[in-house]
């Protein structure tokens, strides 16, 4: 009797592992080993055409850590992420809120609001060059007509600003969509009850909507941070790190080192260090996330 009951349990066990295994094996095979390989490289000296010519211990790491450019790149990346994401969060949430409380022509606005998320970053970055250029660029023209003169693409600050604006354009829809999901999960009755007590939409927003949507919002922000720290396509296409190396986000710098200078050793070390740095930051927030995702 007990034996046959466990046959049923065994069949279930086989089933659930069989379904899960391919995905797990795939991920392990295609990320675990490459990371190991990267670590391997980071301790080596790699010459194009010859492969690994020798091991240099922690040399690569030291060179990276003492390179001002490395820290600058991290700083720029942090700055980039630190400015764009809060703005994206506010804009995205606001737009979601507007739609939730009853914007007319929803089926017109919603697709439009989500569209930018699915554009190709490099294409937009490239387009950005023509938008921000002093010569005939739309944005430059707009600002000029307001009397504000900004050197968009010829200064670090301007370049970063331009990249940030475009990044916000592309990624706000992400927060927008998640906020929409969060807000529509709040039952209509709660809204109605709140509206009866509150004197304005703003109050409902502040005291009901935001607290209830907050968990999802934090996850959205976390996901954005994860992706944002890897930003490459947009800034690269827009400024390619220039002028000079002043707008070089981390991934641009790493890409330069690895692909264009083919210094695999140093590039790998850079990457590993960044991975560690990012992992620490993310793990801290991950703990928060664990509580929210069921």
């Amino acid at each position, binding site marked *: *009797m*007990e*034996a*046959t*009951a466990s*046959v*049923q*349990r065994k069949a279930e066990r086989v089933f659930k592992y069989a379904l899960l295994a391919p995905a797990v094996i795939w991920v392990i095979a295609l990320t675990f080993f490459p990371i190991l390989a990267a670590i391997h490289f980071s301790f080596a000296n790699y010459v194009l055409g010859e492969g690994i010519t020798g091991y240099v211990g922690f040399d690569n790491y030291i060179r990276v850590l003492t390179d001002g450019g490395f820290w600058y790149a991290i700083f720029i990346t942090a700055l980039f992420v630190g400015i764009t994401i809060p703005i994206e969060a506010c804009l995205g949430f606001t737009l979601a809120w507007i739609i939730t409380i009853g914007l007319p022509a929803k089926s017109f606005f919603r697709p439009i609001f989500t569209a930018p998320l699915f554009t190709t970053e490099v294409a937009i970055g490239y387009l950005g060059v023509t938008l921000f250029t002093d010569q005939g660029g739309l944005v430059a023209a707009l600002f000029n007509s307001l009397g504000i003169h900004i050197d968009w693409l010829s200064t670090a600050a301007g370049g970063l600003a331009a990249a940030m604006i475009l990044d916000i354009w592309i990624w706000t829809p992400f927060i927008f969509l998640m906020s929409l999901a969060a807000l529509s999960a709040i039952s209509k009755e709660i809204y109605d009850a709140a509206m009866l007590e509150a004197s304005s939409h703003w109050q409902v927003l502040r005291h009901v909507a935001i607290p209830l949507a907050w968990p999802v919002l934090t996850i959205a922000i976390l996901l954005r941070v994860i992706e944002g720290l890897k930003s490459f396509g947009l800034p690269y296409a827009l400024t390619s790190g220039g002028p000079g190396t002043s707008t070089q986000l981390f991934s641009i710098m790493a890409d330069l080192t690895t692909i264009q200078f083919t210094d695999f050793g140093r590039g790998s070390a850079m990457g590993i260090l960044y991975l560690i740095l990012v992992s620490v930051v993310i793990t801290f927030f991950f703990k928060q996330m664990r509580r929210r995702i069921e």
Partner: protein
Amino acid sequence: MAVVELDKVSKRYGDVVAVQDFNLTTSDGEFVVLVGPSGCGKTTTMRMIAGLELITQGSIKIGGRDVAGMIPRERDVAMVFQNYALFPHMNVFGNMAFGLRLRKLPKAQIENQVQRAAKILGIENLLNRKPKELSGGQRQRVALGRAIVREPQVFLMDEPLSNIDAKLRVEMRGEIIKLQRRLGVTTFYVTHDQVEAMSMGDRVVVMLDGRIQQVGTPRELYRKPTNRYVAGFIGSPAMNFVRAHVGEDGTVSAGDDFRLFPPGSVMEGVRKLGLAEVWVGVRPEHLKIRREGEPASKNVIRGTVEVVEPQGSTTLIQLNACGDLRVNALLEEQLEPAVGARLDLWVGDDAVYVFNPGTDERIQ
């Protein structure tokens, strides 16, 4: 058609005991109702019969076969769920034919059986519709249709009528009974509604906290409850319970206005147990108003009327006796006392129940 035997069946989730020592043997074609409050273990028990939960201890036999290792499919049972659990992406025909198709029966036969079942339930014209196009009652019928089409050995019904509105519920109750009688399939029916239990079951199993409190026909449960829980659970409005002193003279009383004389055999039992206090139970429907000219009764309860609730052919009154003792009585309509009036109620000897305060068992 099959006999279902549950022998010392228990279910544990870690430290939590959901069902304890469940013993029951049905007769062939019997309609058994499992009734009790939420969490009493009735659904868990049924799911163990179905094979949706594994049995921790004990054994279940369907038609003589021990079903311990069998997956649901092999047990040849059919189940009707509280929320019908119809397959939303299939039409009614598909829903009903699902099990048959899985068994790879020939198309013509499937067609036949589904049509037959649909006819019995009066849903032939709905076969092409999808569940979301149907009303609650119609969905219920489809769920029933899906269950009967396979001609299983046992029907299991998990509160199938709780999501239906009251009026339709009474009608469906009758239909389910008729259906079951016609098909003669052993049926387990779970509900939390004691009225439903009493009106439908050949036998009723009252459960609490995972244990069977009593098994019996509705009549038996009504007339001879084994403990205070069953006595209070069965019958609506619920039985009145009063804490009373045992008197030397064979009475139980809670004051001058509440003095009753239980049957002699019962008081014998009380004396044997040496109890000074007992619980006394009287059903509201057994309390009567003493009319002019009627002989005085020994069992009298006196009090002031506090609440009067007309209920059509009956009137429910709440009496305040001996200060703060509240007693409910269900009277015939013609007698409608006024609020504040002093009233004498009497009850027959055999309608006085006495319970042991320590174990809550009825003393007989």
